[in-house]
């Protein structure tokens, strides 16, 4: 059986470095299998977060050869076999141990978002054409690969000012809900820092669920922020109609 060298990050909050492990590659093997091999035979103390091993739970996110991926969906035979495979923890979050990162910051951001609030006197009927868009966003498995790859968090560390693609998807799902009755445009602009996103589409590129994050969630949300804050004509129309803006 051919062997491959895995260079796996070993360390914690204080720092660390990669260590080399030789792993036999079997047909159909994924990176998570290789990590389990290392845990079982070579380094029992290797910390790896995983759960379903089927690409549904979003737990096993890491960076394989510099690219954010789910290790359970990355086949070993898709990687160059003649070079070591480097496996690092997600860069945008603090390391707890080895490949396990502390993603609790995401849950704090999530709490800023007001949940679904139906319109007054809602008739609880929805047509398929009205929920098609939202259903795409419901595929999110919260692997946080999009958060990890986003350069606003990854390189510029704007965790205090920026919500990240995952939460723009969540807000989009609520905003486009046919029965939801509140606007989150001010939240997007002020609390979640949507303006920091310069739509370079890396979140879309790494999404394992193939959600069109940028085109279907972020850009429509940017347009709604423009509706509320940057479009003087719409502002005038709202004033003439006596409608409230999201700021009021």
């Amino acid at each position, binding site marked *: 059986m051919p062997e491959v060298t895995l260079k796996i990050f070993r*360390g914690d909050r204080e720092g660390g470095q990669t260590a080399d492990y030789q792993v036999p590659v079997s047909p159909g093997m994924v990176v998570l299998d290789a990590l389990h091999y290392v845990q079982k035979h070579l380094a029992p103390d290797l910390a790896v977060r995983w759960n379903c091993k089927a690409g549904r739970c979003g737990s096993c996110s890491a*960076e394989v050869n510099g690219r954010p991926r789910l290790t359970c969906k990355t086949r070993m035979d898709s990687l160059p076999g003649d070079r070591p495979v480097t496996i690092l923890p997600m860069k945008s*979050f603090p390391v707890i141990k080895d490949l396990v990162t502390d993603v609790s910051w995401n849950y704090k951001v999530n709490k800023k978002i007001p949940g679904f609030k139906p319109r007054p006197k809602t008739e609880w009927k929805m047509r398929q054409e009205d929920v098609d868009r939202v259903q795409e966003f419901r595929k999110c498995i919260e692997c946080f690969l999009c958060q990890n790859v986003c350069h606003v968090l990854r390189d510029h560390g704007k965790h205090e000012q920026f919500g990240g693609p995952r939460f723009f998807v969540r807000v989009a799902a609520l905003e486009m809900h046919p029965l939801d009755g509140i606007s989150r445009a001010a939240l997007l602009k002020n609390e979640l*820092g949507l303006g920091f996103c*310069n739509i370079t589409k*890396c979140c879309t590129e790494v999404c394992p669920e193939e959600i069109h994050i940028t085109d279907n969630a972020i850009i429509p949300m940017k347009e709604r922020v423009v509706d509320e804050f*940057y479009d003087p004509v719409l502002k005038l129309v709202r004033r003439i109609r006596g409608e409230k803006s999201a700021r009021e």
Partner: protein
Amino acid sequence: MASTSPTVHAAVPTGSWWTQIAPVVLGLGAFSVYATWRAFEGAYFWASPYLSPFYSPLLDVHHHYWPYSPALLILGGPLGFRATCYYYRKAYYRAFFLDPPACAVAERKRNYCGETRFPFILQNVHRYFMYLAIVFLVFLWHDALHAFVFADRFGVGLGTLVLLVNVMLLTLYFSSCHSLRHLLGGKLDCFSCTNFGNARHSTWRGLSFLNEHHMLFAWTSLFSVGLADFYVRLVSSGAIRDLRLL
């Protein structure tokens, strides 16, 4: 908040990320140089019945009010539409600002503001350039149809087809615009609760289909508009003769 292993991440080979941005730098760079030269040239834009798209609509061609090239009066519109376009923003932020150069490739540390401050906060006026683009499209369709008229008779030259294909690609680029998709349907939360909801939903779905190919239309229309101008220039300057097909 950041990983405690920045040096470890920096040591990972990032691959040949520059191969992703090199075509963008070359394509946008070459077009910018050519378009700037042609805009300032102020000549060879008319070869009856063809008008270069860089000079349409043709304003003050006899320099009564504007002493410079007439293209300079109008090119701000198309330039603004493309410069604020969501696709081109991705392309030039990556290729020219290296912000980021590619996904998961480290960029230089600095005070990043994204599109929250001047000048990039002006990207939010994209929809106004889109409104302006409608005016340009009307003129370009007029020019393309006018290119079928040779001395008051119907005819077809190679230039006719060049202008026609160009305006069709420009129309597809315009129709796949994210702002248009938003304004014609995307802004609604509930299609079935709105007047003309079915029509707006169908429109939104059609525009969404086109929107998936926005990058393709952005590039093909960019090249077609440059080639259309180049063809008119060649004919106008006498370098070649227009091939008459009908």
